[in-house]
């Protein structure tokens, strides 16, 4: 690991000033960053430790019906907050399907949003990677790429964003609160992560010094609590990243879908909101045919980036199954195996 300076600012303003310098990065739990630094993938000159900043570890239910989650709330504390899990069950299920209990205890909300891709060529410093070193090339394009992107990729980068948490968040129109050199601003989570295009090294809309201080879910997000699920296919039942995942949520009124929310994980460089699929589910009955049509719409633009055409059909099936599970109703308890298609309590009929 390269030598670095360590600074521990006392306020958010001091943190922003310290992190705006070239070569500086924020340190929260470090569960992803330290791993990258040990491998020489990240080589920061300065770590700005934000773990001790006050006021960033609260879950606040606001008067207008929204919830504000401080950036330093741990993944575990958020998932196990009874009020939060009841109002946003798909978010809690997604959190509990990610990583291991040890990592969830440490990892923060802000850090989860900014975790880096798990593309093996990004991690291997002997490989070419446009994300790690701009303009060097992409060894994933002709390499082992069955887990890579099928949506939104470019010839320069076919990596995926690994977060489970972000998938239901983007479905529920989450807003990211940012403190920067010019003060406070907010952007939609859907605008935070960038598609690779010609510049895969630029992964987010954040500017130097920008610090995520909170994530907010708007009032409408609560309206899906009765019919909201997260479903994740992985290569082992626990402690693995998604091959493909989906967050599906429905507002069902008088036997018809008033509004649907759908997002996919493991398919693109960002959590992938499927708005065209949501549109076909508006004001129709929650039937298998409607879910098939939605699945088709969600993957209309998908194309293989390598040996991964199977992910397109898999994603369609995951969409249908997640919508079917959501229509059946949110279970009273999160299943023993969160988000697993093998969960004994899922009660799902195979699509």
């Amino acid at each position: 690991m390269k030598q670095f300076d360590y600074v521990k600012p006392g306020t958010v303003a001091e943190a922003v000033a310290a992190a705006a310098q070239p070569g500086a990065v924020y340190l929260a739990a470090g569960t992803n960053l330290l791993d990258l630094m040990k491998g020489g993938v990240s080589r920061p000159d300065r770590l700005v430790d934000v773990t001790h900043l006050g006021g960033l570890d609260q879950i606040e239910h606001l008067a207008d019906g929204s919830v504000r989650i401080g950036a330093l709330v741990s993944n575990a504390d958020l998932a196990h907050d009874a009020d939060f899990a009841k109002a946003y069950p798909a978010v809690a299920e997604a959190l509990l399907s990610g990583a291991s209990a040890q990592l969830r205890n440490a990892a923060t909300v802000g850090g989860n949003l900014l975790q880096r891709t798990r593309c093996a060529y990004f991690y291997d410093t002997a490989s070419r990677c446009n994300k790690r070193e701009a303009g060097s090339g992409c060894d994933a394009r002709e390499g082992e790429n069955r887990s890579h992107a099928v949506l939104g990729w470019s010839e320069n980068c076919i990596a995926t964003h690994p977060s489970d948490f972000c998938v239901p968040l983007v479905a529920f129109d989450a807003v990211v609160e940012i403190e920067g050199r010019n003060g406070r601003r907010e952007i939609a989570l859907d605008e935070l992560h960038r598609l690779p295009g010609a510049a895969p090294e630029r992964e987010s809309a954040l500017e130097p010094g920008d610090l995520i201080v909170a994530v907010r879910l708007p009032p409408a997000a609560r309206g899906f609590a009765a019919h909201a699920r997260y479903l994740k296919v992985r290569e082992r039942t626990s402690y693995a990243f998604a091959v493909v995942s989906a967050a599906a949520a429905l507002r069902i009124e008088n036997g018809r879908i008033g509004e649907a929310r759908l997002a996919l994980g493991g398919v693109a460089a960002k959590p992938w909101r499927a708005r065209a699929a949501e549109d076909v589910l508006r004001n129709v009955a929650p039937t298998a045919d409607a879910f098939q049509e939605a699945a088709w719409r969600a993957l209309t633009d998908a194309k293989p980036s390598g040996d991964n055409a199977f992910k397109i059909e898999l994603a369609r099936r995951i969409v249908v199954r997640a919508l079917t599970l959501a229509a059946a109703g949110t279970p009273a308890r999160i299943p023993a195996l969160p988000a697993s298609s093998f969960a004994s309590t899922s009660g799902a009929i195979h699509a």
Partner: protein
Amino acid sequence: MNHSISLTVNGARRDFVLDDPRVTLLDLLRERLHLTGTKKGCDRGQCGACTILVDGKRINSCLALAISHDGADILTIEGVARGDQLHPVQAAFIAHDGFQCGFCTPGQIMSAIGMMSEAQAGNDPERIRECMSGNLCRCGAYAGIVDAVLEAQAGMDESNQRRSA
């Protein structure tokens, strides 16, 4: 630049001067305190052999910078027994052969102790497997590990009932 931190480790306050901010909690415990029960397996947060409790919560000590944990209360495998009296989870691992080579065992036991205080798993074997998935065992002693955790959990439930009766 040197940084001073203090930790409570297994109940005792320890002060350190760190001349390098790269030291992890894992390396601090093993190299500075010679508490080598906490194992360095992958050193990348994938195997769980380095699991310790920090402020009562289980984490991977290989992915935690010591410098960022000034003031933390740390419990390692060396701190769970009371003299010669084993912690119930330790005793259950022996009773159920919850190990073969033993390298992952301190991490498994610390993870199980952390899990029981999180009160997530109850007595559901499937849930225990899920809640313990951050601890790999290359010998494949998982069946014994699950049985050991089930027994320790049952013992804790019983003693809680006695206390509340």
